[in-house]
């Protein structure tokens, strides 16, 4: 029972938040935290749980953003349906990249580089061809209605991304307790030993990359619908990949709540500096400083602060 206390309490707080803090700024803040938590968790289930460090998760994010947007803008397909198509496309791209890389035994930094290469290739391709809108990107025509995944009120977006965030945390909780998750941890810790104990490491790694890709792509669709504009640099750029792994690393890789904590801090710094000053790039300086402090004192991420408190209470 006690295992459910933390997620239930978090969910209750998250559900109540926009009812208490009703300003656009506050709700936008909540949306961004949850959005980064979703894509950070997508990275984390592959990079943290299974140890498959990707440096190009933007490839899934962009795939999702473009998939639903092209379906919507060019073919008139409802973005709610597009969300599912995006997740499927993300899973396919994830499985494809994984199958290709792992078939040839790529690991560690080589795998990171191949994911980066794929993200860059996708960015350049979308930039080059006609039906993606090329370098100009795609504008989603404004038609505010919930049925159109364009909520008239921000709070609709908030609850949508909350549902995705809850799903992402549910996936992480499930991985912590399931056979699949145990196998991923075994692969992360020692792949040869995992094989010796009967684990089909290739299949498990392809599965987690597909799941990670699907979740990340769903985040991409949300992004497109929230901002109503995407272009190759924004959704396939290395910045997005870095954001995802930063969120996860600052909070704590391989943990259930690490990405949520990281997303909160990152959004706080980003939105806080933007609200208080108009100094360009100040938030980047603060990010850099924070990163150094965290790497120096909390190499496992901010989640260690919480663990320390629990440990002390138990002792």
């Amino acid at each position: 029972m006690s295992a459910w206390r933390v997620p239930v309490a978090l969910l209750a707080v998250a559900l109540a938040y926009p009812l208490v803090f009703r300003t656009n700024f506050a709700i936008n803040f909540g949306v961004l935290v949850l959005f980064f938590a979703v894509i950070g968790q997508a990275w984390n289930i592959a990079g943290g749980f299974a140890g498959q460090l990707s440096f190009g998760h933007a490839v899934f994010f962009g795939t999702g953003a473009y998939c639903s947007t092209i379906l919507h803008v060019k073919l008139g397909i409802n973005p709610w349906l597009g969300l599912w198509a995006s997740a499927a496309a993300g899973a396919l791209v994830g499985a494809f990249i994984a199958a290709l890389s792992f078939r040839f035994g790529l690991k560690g930094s080589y795998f990171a580089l191949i994911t980066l290469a794929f993200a860059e290739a996708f960015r350049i391709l979308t930039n080059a061809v006609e039906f993606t809108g090329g370098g100009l990107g795609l504008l989603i025509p404004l038609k505010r209605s919930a049925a159109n995944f364009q909520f008239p009120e921000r709070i609709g977006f908030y609850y949508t991304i909350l549902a995705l965030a809850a799903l992402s945390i549910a996936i992480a909780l499930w991985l912590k307790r399931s056979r699949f998750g145990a196998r991923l941890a075994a692969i992360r810790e020692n792949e040869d030993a995992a094989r010796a104990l009967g684990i089909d490491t290739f299949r498990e790694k392809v599965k987690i990359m597909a799941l990670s890709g699907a979740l990340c792509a769903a985040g991409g669709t949300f992004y497109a619908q929230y901002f109503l504009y995407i272009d190759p640099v924004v959704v396939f750029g290395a910045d997005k990949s870095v954001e995802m792994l930063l969120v996860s690393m600052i909070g704590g890789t391989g943990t259930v709540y690490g990405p949520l904590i990281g997303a909160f801090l990152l959004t706080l710094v980003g939105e806080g500096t933007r609200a208080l000053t108009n100094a360009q790039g100040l938030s980047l300086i603060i990010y850099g400083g924070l990163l150094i402090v965290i790497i120096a004192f909390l190499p496992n991420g901010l989640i260690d602060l919480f663990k320390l408190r629990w440990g002390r209470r138990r002792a």
Partner: protein
Amino acid sequence: MLEVEGLSKIYGGLRAVDRASLRVAEGAIAGLIGPNGAGKTTLFAAITGFALPDEGRVRFAGVDITGRAPHRICAQGMVRTFQITQPFAQLSVRENIMVGAYLHTPDRDEAAARAEAVARQVGMAALLDRTAAGLTVAGRKRLELARALATRPKLLLLDEVMAGLNPSEIDEIIPVIRGIRDAGVTVFLIEHVMRAVMSLAENVHVLSYGKIIAEGAPRVLAADPVVIEAYLGHGAAQRLAGAAHA
């Protein structure tokens, strides 16, 4: 149970394993000995699918498993341990063993129960909640054993589980291995600790320069001139015999 026929593993110009043939009978404790670099671990790797053999056949429980992937061989009931221990370092002992137990059940509670039972069997029940990284060498060796056992093998290949242990730790682990066999698991072990080989194995194969040069009961082999020469060099058997007469 295990039949190896003419198995070779070639690295460049080196025949690390050279047309090795051997049999391990069901219910036995069989040994594989040989000087350092003889190819024992490579032979294990070629049997368990970690290295693709260049020649020869491996039959396990009547099925040809030559060149199958390690995870498939494990699922069929043959599992190996590693000479250089390969723990899942950041996981607890319990979680380590559960990975093995999950082979036959998707259920977490069942896997945990199996892990506890196996931990008792190898004498590490008190260490279940320890992180694997914090174990001593002896603890890591036992963990290798426990994880492999948790997969419910029919045949267990142990690669030097006693290397690096002190004499009293060796005395503790010998009955554990005998107990595993008595519980119905066939055991095939590589071992340098001759005391352990003598007391455990009924039948021993000797590997030298990749070739099986002798086979038999350990006591007989210890007096075999071919085996003595493999370990001590050409003419050693004769010199030893001369020294004994003098």
